[in-house]
């Protein structure tokens, strides 16, 4: 639940999603759900010459199960806040 809430706060920001097939897609975070499925708008593949497979796609849905990393904008991360929240969750409260 913690990371679901966290990603919901990042809606509207520019992120790069790296998939488990090495494809990296950059776009504006449109929405996220409880499976951490992600919808991106205004997408472009980071290495378009190597991966021209999505040239005609500007908006996409990415299944949460295939995401390896989400690269965040530095200003989107409050490390102190995340520290506190993860510790609270670990304590079960």
């Amino acid at each position, binding site marked *: 639940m913690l990371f679901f809430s966290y990603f919901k706060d990042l809606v509207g920001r520019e992120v790069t999603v790296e*998939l*488990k*097939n*090495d*494809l990296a*897609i950059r776009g504006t975070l*449109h*929405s*996220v*759900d*409880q499976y951490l*499925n*992600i*919808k991106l708008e205004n*997408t472009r593949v980071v290495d378009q010459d*190597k*991966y*021209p*497979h*999505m*040239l*005609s*796609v*500007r*908006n*996409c*849905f*990415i*299944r949460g*199960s*295939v995401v390896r990393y989400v690269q965040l904008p530095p200003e989107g991360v409050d490390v102190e806040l995340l520290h506190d929240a993860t510790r609270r969750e670990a304590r079960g409260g």
Partner: protein
Amino acid sequence: MSGGPGLESLVDQQISVITNDGRNIVGVLKGFDQATNIILDESHERVYSTKEGVQQLVLGLYIIRGDNISIVGEVDEELDSNLDMSKLRAHPLKPIIH
């Protein structure tokens, strides 16, 4: 779950699906469910290779199991019609490795 990244807005539209084994299937979205199982109508597969342009294989009506889906992209018809598939060369996408 309202406001989540559902596929409602893509129904009856042309979509491009990338599967976990690296295939690219394009078709009209007719239905989907919670598990991202998908019904595609008038679908075809786009086969990428480095030796020749993109081959299109007609598949017809397809159901793709959600487990096997990586990306569902909304096809921009204008961008798509301006693509010269016969000139596109690329390695096939790698499979998803969990």
